[in-house]
């Protein structure tokens, strides 16, 4: 059971004794093994949504539940991938990936085999003993994703994970993520401000209004992808060339433009 449910969720924050609404009245269901992307203007609260699901923040009213259970705090069942990687600089690649596994009480052998598999899956062979500062941004983010994935989490929460990468590395990682999702599907909540990224990766795209953040519209991408057969293309630029893709992307852009003003 890995549904994420936001029910009538609101979040206010305090500053100088006054309270400001960050999110208002969010009703959203992310289905099992569904990939949902949230886009919106800066400050619209999309990251807050993710942090609420992660248990790093708490709602002012309403509830957020994962798998039917209300979220009470952070945990390895809702693995988070941060924009800034958040790799422990004092641990090697292997040790970073191992970190969450230790909380699960698995034996050393079991851990070892899982980590090895993850390293292979993310293309990190040969870097097991390297430290984060020795790796490029793209490699570091791979480690961060591996660290989350190795836990076999119920839900994967990704907060603008490719935001800190350069354009070329970014496209490589996006293709990787699509491949991963096919091989190892799970429920994903993905925050981004890059519309193309959202349309390429997601089953549904949630468009938010500017602050206070509300859901403006939810666009169904999955049916378009299925109908137009985007999956037959290997390369990301081939998908992005499709008229259907451009159409979707443009309509979302237009929505965001209206929110920008």
């Amino acid at each position: 059971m890995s549904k994420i449910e936001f029910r009538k969720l609101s979040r206010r924050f305090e500053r100088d004794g006054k309270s400001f609404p960050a999110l208002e009245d969010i009703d959203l269901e992310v289905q099992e093994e569904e990939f949902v992307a949230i886009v919106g203007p800066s400050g619209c609260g999309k990251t807050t949504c993710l942090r609420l699901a992660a248990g790093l923040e708490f709602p002012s009213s309403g509830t957020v539940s994962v798998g039917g259970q209300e979220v009470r705090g952070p945990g390895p069942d809702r693995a988070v991938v941060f924009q800034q990687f958040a790799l422990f600089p004092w641990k090697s690649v292997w040790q970073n990936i191992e970190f969450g596994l230790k909380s699960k009480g698995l034996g050393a052998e079991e851990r070892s085999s899982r980590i090895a598999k993850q390293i292979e899956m993310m293309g990190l062979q040969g870097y097991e003993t390297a430290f984060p500062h020795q790796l490029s941004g793209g490699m570091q983010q791979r480690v961060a994703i591996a660290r989350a994935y190795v836990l076999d989490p119920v839900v994967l929460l990704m907060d603008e994970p490719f935001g800190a990468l350069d354009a070329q590395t970014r496209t490589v990682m996006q293709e990787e993520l699509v491949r991963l999702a096919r091989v190892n599907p799970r429920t994903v909540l993905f925050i981004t401000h890059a519309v193309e990224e959202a349309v390429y990766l997601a089953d549904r795209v949630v468009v938010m209004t500017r602050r206070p953040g509300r859901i403006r519209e939810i666009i169904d991408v999955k049916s378009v992808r299925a109908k137009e057969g985007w999956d037959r293309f290997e390369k990301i630029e081939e998908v992005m060339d499709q008229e259907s893709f451009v159409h979707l992307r443009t309509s979302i852009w237009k929505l965001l433009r209206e929110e920008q003003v």
Partner: protein
Amino acid sequence: MRPDSRNRTGMLIGLATVAAVLIAWYVLTTVTQAISSARFPSPAEVASAFRQIAFTGYADGRLDQHVLQSCKLILMGFAAAAVIGVPLGLAMGFSRRFEAFFNPVFLLIRPIPPLAWIPLAIVWLGLGDAAKILVIWFAAFVPSVINSYTGVRSIEPHLLEAARTLGARNARLWLEVLVPGAAPHIFTGLRLSLQASWTTLVAGELIGALQGLGQVLNAAAQDLYPAMILVGMIFVGICGGGMTWILGRIERRAMPWRSA
């Protein structure tokens, strides 16, 4: 200017100045006797004082015995202070409750310079080793706490969030996240503690001791023996520098993840 030649010029200037000072020293004390040996010793006198203390002994001991004694006390006081101070600082940095409770008392103790504890320590424990270890402890304690505190506070919030989402609690949180995260600052604190320890020890030994480098300085001052004073000072410097160097090596090995 090519970097190579700049460095070399720099080194040459440095060497030249050092040489000039040494030569001036020799000339002023031995050749012209412009500075009387009652004020500042000549190189020859220093050499002979060194030979005396190294082989025959001075102030109830040979050089190696004095050095050992001083180093022993330093290590004891320093280790005891670090063992208590570092965890306390880490705890105060991490837990607001802990901080609120202990901080006021710490703020009261902190402004008292370590040397100011010497008379009290002597009243409590007499002129022996125990008093010195106590004062060294105070000297080393404060920097350890402060820097460990800063160290924990300097850990990037994202790392702590990541640790929490990955299920790190209690022992694992401390050993695998807080301590390594604060490590650079902890070592800075240890370095400052070490410096403070030496200052305090020498002061303590100047006031009263049976053996130790400070005692050498004290005896030499009373005997009006400037050459021996200088020998004592040189070895205070060497020992202090040596320990700092060792600490630096430990630091580098303890944190293999640091880039240069």
